[in-house]
């Protein structure tokens, strides 16, 4: 080992990096970007969960006394940072809000809630107990737990304030996601995420190869148009996306025994449109890279936003409010949402169409931009 030779190699590598301004920028921008996105997006606290309260509590009026409503005290103690509270009178209408995905849960205080609570305190042997019923969408464990915790905290605070020491029950009755576990929440998201990741990166690398090997030039010197190149890629990667999802889904069903209550073909459709969008994104990004090494530098910018903002690993409600609009600029968000709705809630086309429409818009936009980027290369 000779020091001068080691230094010669080291200097050469440094020079290589410094000469490539893009690599240099990426070298410092990528970690800053990663740190910021992780730090900002990964707060872990769920906020702004929509819930509907149906308060049927008639209260309790002691002889010669004023009527007490424990339910109102509990409601006033609910954490409004966590829960966006709406009130309704009709349980069925409130349940419909959950079924339509407009709200995450209905919190029901039955008619005799306060009466049962106070009677039980006075006469522990009476056997009557008060319960709060939460009927909700239990497909996202973080949200389910956030609602339960918020209600339990408010309950504890009320009991100590009002001197109620009888057991108050919180009963969870899932409208969606009966027996759902984290893996059931995770799998639909990971299907979309894997397709997004692999398709974008594979197209990016493949297309940079097309540009550097001269094959793209040769093809564009033939009757093949830019639109035909992009469409040909779209068909291939759309099909590959569906095959990927099928394999993953079979493993998830056989090995992890996940819940699938809906028509998986709709999930396949969402993922296929996502794959088409992603291959167009890959082609678009490839126009910014002159060499395969430069393409690799795009990985953090492709992976991190989807990882953190698309709701794969935690719900969008766990992202800071100001950052949430960015979630809707990341195509996998819609595919994750659609796959989850189909597989865990059994939703059909009539309910997941907004997600599919958003994916189609992204696909058309990115396909158009990919064609434009190829045409621009001729200028």
């Amino acid at each position, binding site marked *: 080992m000779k020091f001068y030779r080691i230094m010669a190699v080291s200097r050469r590598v440094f020079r290589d990096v410094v000469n490539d301004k893009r690599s240099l920028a990426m070298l410092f921008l990528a970690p800053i970007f990663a740190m910021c996105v992780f730090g900002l997006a990964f707060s872990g606290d769920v906020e702004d969960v929509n819930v509907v309260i149906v308060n049927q509590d008639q209260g309790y009026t002691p002889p010669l006394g004023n009527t007490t409503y424990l339910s109102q005290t509990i409601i006033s103690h609910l954490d409004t940072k966590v829960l966006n509270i709406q009130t309704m009178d009709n349980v069925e209408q409130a349940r419909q809000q959950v079924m339509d995905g407009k709200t995450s849960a209905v919190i029901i205080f039955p008619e005799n809630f306060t009466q049962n609570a106070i009677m039980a305190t006075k006469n522990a042997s009476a056997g009557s107990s008060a319960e709060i019923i939460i009927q909700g969408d239990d497909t996202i464990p973080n949200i389910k737990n956030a609602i339960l915790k918020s209600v339990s905290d408010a309950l504890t605070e009320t009991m100590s304030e009002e001197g109620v020491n009888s057991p108050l029950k919180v009963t969870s009755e899932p409208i969606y996601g009966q027996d759902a576990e984290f893996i059931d929440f995770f799998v639909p998201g990971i299907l979309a995420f894997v397709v997004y990741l692999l398709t974008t990166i594979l197209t990016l690398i493949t297309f940079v190869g097309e540009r550097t090997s001269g094959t793209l030039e040769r093809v564009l010197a*033939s*009757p093949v148009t830019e639109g035909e190149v992009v469409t040909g890629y779209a068909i291939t990667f759309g099909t590959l996306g569906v095959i990927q999802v099928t394999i993953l889904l079979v493993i998830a069903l056989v090995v992890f025994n996940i819940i699938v209550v809906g028509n998986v073909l709709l999930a396949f459709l969402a993922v296929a449109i996502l794959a088409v969008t992603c291959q167009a994104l890959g082609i678009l990004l490839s126009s910014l890279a002159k060499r395969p090494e430069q393409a690799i530098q795009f990985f953090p910018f492709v992976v991190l936003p989807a990882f953190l903002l698309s709701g794969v690993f935690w719900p969008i409600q766990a992202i800071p409010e100001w950052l949430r609009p960015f979630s809707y600029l990341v195509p996998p968000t819609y595919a994750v949402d659609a796959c989850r709705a189909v597989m865990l809630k059994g939703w059909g086309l009539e309910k997941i169409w907004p997600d599919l429409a958003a994916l189609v818009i992204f696909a058309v936009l990115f396909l158009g931009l990919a064609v434009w980027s190829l045409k621009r290369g001729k200028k």
Partner: protein
Amino acid sequence: MNQQSELAIETRGLSKQYGNFTAVNHLDLKVKKGEIYGLLGPNGAGKTTLIKMLCSILHSTRGKARVLGEEIPDGNVVSSIGYMPQETGVYMGLTVDQNLKFYGRVFNLDKEEMEKREDELLKFVALEDWKHEMVENLSGGMKHRVSLACTLIHQPELLFLDEPTVGVDPELRVSFWNYFYQLRQKGVTILLTTHYMDEARNCDRIGFMQHGHLIAEDTPSKLLEESRTDSLEDAFLVFSRSDKKSGDGC
């Protein structure tokens, strides 16, 4: 027959500008049908840029060009041209057969015609035994042979060959040229770039390119005569100096 119908390529004041850099500068070029025309010049002279513009891969900044009688860029004319890029321009992850079939399909060849053409071309480039081999496993010279075969699969009327014989051994280079002559006999026009001066002598006409324009153009023998040299390399240097002087004079 009018002059235009005799010309395979005609450019007038063709220019390509990249920011402040002029790759092709007001170039006038005429290549007759059935001619083998060689473009010679140092790296960066604009030869490849010119070929790319003529193949409609690049748009010109100024000037006009006609290829096979059609003003370019034109979507129809590309069916009649064959382009062999400087890089091999073949898919490394496909076999020789798959590459040829891909380019055959692009030009809408039917199955029977494709098989016939493929057999002919593989015989010509001496790759019959490598038909089902992945291109990435072939040597550099073999990859060039695959590239040439892909260029010829649809029997184009006009060939643009960007350094077609780089990395090809001398024996095969001779067979390439024999094939080019056969193509010329069939009326195919060939515009090629090369760095091999001995090879350039095989062209019907040669254009010396420097700084994006032609500094001299004629048959090899006339260029040698005019420059009073006995090698094209020396001839290029003579014309290059004289172009520089006339440029300085301006």
